[in-house]
């Protein structure tokens, strides 16, 4: 009897551990919704999403997050343009071309890059990259979207490289043999056979890399200049959704419209990264 009871308790405890992550996500989402949706008592959803001015503590407060959304999109776009070609090139090199020893060194390097805390990357960007961008483009400040994009590209690279490399590695060796036996060169084999065969994994790699970029906060806050105006390009200071929450949450009065607006921004971020992850997942499991 006692033995049965013990089994019952342990089983239920393990069950609880098993579903904990789902419960946490649900709780976080509910909390976000509850706090975030309250902002729409003060501002209409259209004004919130498409409003061009973000002055949360003026009187009356102006809560338009369009500059922040565009800031996030610009930085993400810039980071993708830089990291996707380099990351895929790196993955192809590691999976197909690099000899044994070089391969191990490169993989180790990529893992190390992933292990650098974002605040350190932000700091390095601040002292090296920001002055460089300022001088190269003759700007009044180097705290720009471009600086943010470059540092974020470094952060997306490890994800893109390791997942794309896995995908390339998973392509059956017989495809490669078949292409070689037809007199294809190594590059023709990579470009026409291996990359298409690994395409779903590669798309997933890119999506997850971008997901990482969108959610990143610390580095972008340090080097993008944080001015909440609609950016017209990457050579201007801008501010992202994430940096806004991090910078302003500490000084927002609990229960104020500013406070609720920051939670609403959290909802937007949650939706974006959820969508990206689901898409990546769809591609990753396409063949299963």
């Amino acid at each position, binding site marked *: 009897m006692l033995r049965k009871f013990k089994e019952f308790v342990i089983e239920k405890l393990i069950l609880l551990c098993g579903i904990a992550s789902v419960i946490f996500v649900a709780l976080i989402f509910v909390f976000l919704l509850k706090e975030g949706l309250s902002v729409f008592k003060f501002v209409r959803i259209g004004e919130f999403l498409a409003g061009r001015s973000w002055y949360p503590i003026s009187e009356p407060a102006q809560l338009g997050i369009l500059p922040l959304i565009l800031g996030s999109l610009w930085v993400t776009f810039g980071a993708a343009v830089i990291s996707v070609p380099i990351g895929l090139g790196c993955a192809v090199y590691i999976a197909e071309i690099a*000899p*044994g020893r070089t391969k191990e060194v490169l993989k180790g390097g990529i893992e190390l890059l992933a292990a650098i805390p974002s605040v350190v990357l932000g700091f390095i960007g601040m002292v090296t990259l920001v002055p460089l961008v300022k001088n190269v483009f003759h700007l009044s400040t180097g705290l720009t979207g471009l600086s943010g994009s470059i540092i974020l590209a470094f952060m997306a690279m490890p994800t893109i490289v390791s997942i794309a490399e896995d995908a390339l590695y998973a392509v*059956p060796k*017989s*495809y*490669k*043999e*078949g*292409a*070689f*036996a*037809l*007199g*294809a*060169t190594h590059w*023709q084999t990579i470009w*026409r*056979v291996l990359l*298409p*065969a690994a395409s779903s994994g590669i798309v997933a790699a890119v999506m997850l890399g971008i997901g990482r970029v969108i959610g990143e906060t610390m580095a972008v806050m340090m080097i993008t200049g944080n001015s909440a105006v609609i950016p017209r390009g990457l050579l201007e200071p801008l501010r992202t959704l994430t940096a806004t929450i991090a910078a302003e949450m500490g000084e927002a009065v609990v229960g104020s419209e500013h406070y609720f607006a920051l939670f609403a921004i959290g909802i937007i971020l949650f939706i974006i990264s959820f969508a990206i992850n689901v898409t990546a997942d769809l591609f990753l499991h396409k063949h299963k």
Partner: protein
Amino acid sequence: MHEKMNAKMEAREINFYYGAVRALKNINMSITGNTVTAIIGPSGCGKSTFIRLLNRMHELVAGSRVEGHVYLDGKDILDPTIDAVDVRRSVGMVFQKPNPFPKTIFENISYGLTVNNVRDKDYIEAKVVESLKKAALWDEVKDRLKDNALRLSGGQQQRLCIARCLAVGPEVLLFDEPCASLDPISTGKIEELMLELKKNYTIVIVTHNMQQAARVSDTTGFFLMGELIEFGKTQDIFTAPKNKQTEAYITGRFG
């Protein structure tokens, strides 16, 4: 140039090493044009290693090393100044497991042409049809060229791989146990096809199946532990082998 010009392909004093392991020992073999040469022997005897040498596919294996010469029409194709890509366009290969690309039937065959920088669409289309007909697959797939090749049956996939090979315009075809994963009916079709292809191509086939070797080949070579034990007319090898080991193998006493 080499003295024996009547041989389509000729292997001379081939030694092959995987790292420190010597996988082929002093192989000499002369392959006559427009014949089928079967290579038989127990697993691990070096027959796949040998056939892969004939179009330099062995280079895909890291740490392998070869000594000796392989002549194709008198030209040494193991010469490092000769591009392996050119060799493989003249000496095609079909593998043990059908390995069509995950593309359409049409694209599978046109692939070999596009990597050769053929851009003329009409020519490609004509060549695809011609290759499928030569591989005796045309009637079965003519209405579904846009289907994914992976939807074909195993036997059809293997014939597609043969068609893919033919499209590039090789002179020699290497078959590395082409029927090992096929049912008897598909196997029969591939064998028929080989006899037909022999008219225009020179064929070398590695097989585990004694009957198959006896049915399709003109010449047979028996490999054992990396050595070519006996090489001669198929009829002689199967009816009156000169070597005791050959006799033991073909009568099924080991292997």
